């Protein structure tokens, strides 16, 4: 671990970048836009980021990434507001907040729930930013020891984790990953220059665009499914009561905030972890520890404080694998990789040495974004609450317009708009068939990197596939992946047996 002065030096460098007026403005705009769109019912962080990606293309790389990170935190907080006030989670990481958050709203304690979410997230964000600054450099050093085999093993672990965390059928999640890998094969093969699976289409020679795929499966498909459910009307939102939590609320909430921050920070680092796992685990922990678990689901403030702190902490620490290894650990981080590549940055261990301003600037901007979020959210919460009442029939054409202009403007390509339609339709059908899109996007981003390291490892190992298990580090990572997969399948097997018995 780095010395205290070194860390201070790094953070100082980061702050000097993050606090230039231009970057503060981008951070502020990102957090504001993120909250603004994230608060709209049915639009989660992934959709929000996919939709706003094109806005950041024309900024400098660092400004663009700072803005995107701001958008991410903003969208996450916006989603919490919607969960608490209208009981519509934007995505799975805020499902948990609905349980007790909306229960508090029904009891007329919405203000306390919103303030707890904001303050808990801020605290968690501060701690997690420090953790990122602390652990990123030593991890980067460790990563220098990684060969192609270890990289491959680590990415395989990430994909296994994505399967484990996907809701519903393990088999379907696995198929979604393979589908993502196949989409990643399309384009020109780096080693041989052969066109793969382009079917003679010139537009596919450079591969399937990240933007059309992300917008299709996260934007278009989500809108269509949501429209079916909502019938275009507005959801009834509750009015906000007194904002400040009572003394008793504080007493109950702060230990939960501490525990949530710990759980979230830890789980965020793991491949496949991130906000969803963090919030679920933190909530479960609180319920276990509570003297009276029956209060949960009935408006227990710990049930808001813990998952909200955890998801923000995890959102931050999930940048660690991205920044040190270049491996995205979940769907949102996959979007970040896409954004970095568009700006000409290949995320990985070299970034910290070659572009220290960028690296530390992003980390410092995490803290700045958290501060900005508290500052804009506590006073503006009434405005956000009113936004949850804008009818969806007015919102969705605007979202669609963003997607269309975004897909077109990136490469001035009508073909990309057509691809967006294709993937929108595909994503829609898959959603209807209960296949979650996040593992697909993750595999799409990881696929080309995995193929490259697989080929390289086998070349170095002279075609001997045991190279992955004879190198201790690679073997250990693969063992963890295998264990994880077995553990996931086991309860599924047990569940299957139980149903079989019942039907007998």
């Amino acid at each position: 671990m780095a010395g205290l002065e070194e860390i201070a030096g790094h953070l100082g460098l980061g702050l000097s970048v993050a606090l230039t007026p231009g970057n503060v403005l981008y951070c502020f705009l990102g957090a504001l836009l993120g909250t603004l769109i994230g608060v709209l019912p049915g639009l989660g962080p992934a959709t929000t980021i996919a939709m706003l990606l094109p806005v950041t293309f024309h900024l400098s790389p660092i400004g663009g990434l700072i803005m995107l990170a701001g958008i991410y935190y903003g969208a996450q907080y916006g989603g919490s507001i919607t969960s608490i006030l209208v009981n519509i989670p934007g995505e799975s990481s805020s499902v948990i907040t609905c349980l007790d958050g909306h229960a508090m709203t029904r009891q007329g304690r919405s203000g306390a729930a919103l303030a707890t979410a904001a303050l808990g997230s801020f605290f968690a964000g501060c701690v997690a930013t420090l953790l990122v600054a602390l652990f990123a450099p030593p991890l980067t050093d460790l990563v220098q020891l990684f060969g192609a085999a270890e990289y491959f093993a680590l990415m395989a672990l990430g994909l296994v984790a994505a399967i484990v965390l996907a809701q519903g059928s393990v088999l379907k999640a696995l198929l979604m990953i393979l589908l993502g890998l196949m989409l990643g094969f399309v384009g020109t093969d780096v080693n041989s220059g052969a066109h793969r699976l382009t079917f003679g289409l010139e537009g596919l020679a450079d591969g399937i665009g990240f933007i059309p795929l992300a917008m299709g499966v996260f934007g278009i498909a989500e809108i269509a499914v949501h429209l079916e459910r909502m019938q275009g009307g507005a959801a009834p939102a509750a009015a906000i009561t007194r904002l400040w939590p009572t003394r008793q609320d504080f007493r109950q909430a702060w230990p939960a905030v501490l525990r949530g921050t710990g759980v979230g920070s830890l789980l965020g680092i793991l491949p496949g972890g991130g906000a969803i796992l963090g919030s679920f685990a933190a909530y479960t922990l609180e319920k276990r520890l509570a003297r009276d678990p029956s209060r949960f689901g009935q408006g227990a403030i710990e049930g808001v404080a813990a998952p909200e702190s955890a998801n923000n902490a995890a959102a931050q620490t999930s940048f660690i694998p991205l920044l040190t290894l270049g491996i995205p650990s979940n769907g949102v981080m996959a979007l970040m990789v896409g954004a970095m590549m568009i700006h000409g940055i290949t995320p990985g261990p070299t970034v910290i040495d070659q572009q220290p301003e960028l690296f530390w600037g992003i980390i410092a901007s995490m803290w700045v974004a958290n501060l900005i979020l508290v500052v804009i959210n506590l006073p503006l919460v009434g405005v956000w609450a009113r936004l949850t009442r804008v009818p969806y029939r007015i919102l969705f054409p605007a979202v669609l317009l963003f997607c269309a202009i975004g897909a077109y403007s990136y490469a001035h390509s009508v073909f990309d708009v057509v691809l967006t339609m294709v993937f929108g339709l595909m994503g829609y059908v898959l959603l209807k068939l209960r296949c979650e899109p996040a593992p697909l996007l993750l595999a799409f981003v990881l696929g080309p990197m995995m193929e490259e390291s697989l080929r390289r490892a086998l070349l170095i190992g002279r075609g001997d596939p045991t190279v992955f298990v004879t190198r201790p580090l690679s073997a250990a990572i693969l063992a963890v992946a295998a264990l994880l997969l077995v553990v996931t399948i086991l309860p599924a097997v047990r569940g299957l047996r139980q149903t079989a018995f019942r039907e007998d």
Partner: protein
Amino acid sequence: MQSTRPDILAAGLFATIGGIVVAGSRGLEPGTLMRMGPGYLPTTVGILVLALAAVLGLRAALARPTDEDRVDWRLGPIAAILAALGAFALLIDPIGLVGATMALIAAARFADRPLRPGETLVLMLAGAAFSALVFVHLLQLPIALWPA
């Protein structure tokens, strides 16, 4: 109804895509394990998808259907959304951003009933003004606003 079961349909979809990938990589050099050619992994993954899709489909076909398995297809919204994007794609190069935006919004509004023509008109104008202002003037995207 048996045929609306999501897993059977999903299996069919995955198998189709897997089949396309396997067929599409037939002309590609497979290479050896030591020196993989461009066709090695696409073929392998494609075959794996076909196998797993078969497992998924068979497992679903053998299980007893329940009410939860039903998939309600309401094709109106997705059709309107795809039409809106299609209109945008067709019009953006020949007539520019203003016209393409208005067409997109007009088509998209068919996703929801009742149609409310007045509101749609306001949204079309607001959308065109917004995209011209934000994307062309503020973000300086080089997109033509009007027909050339």
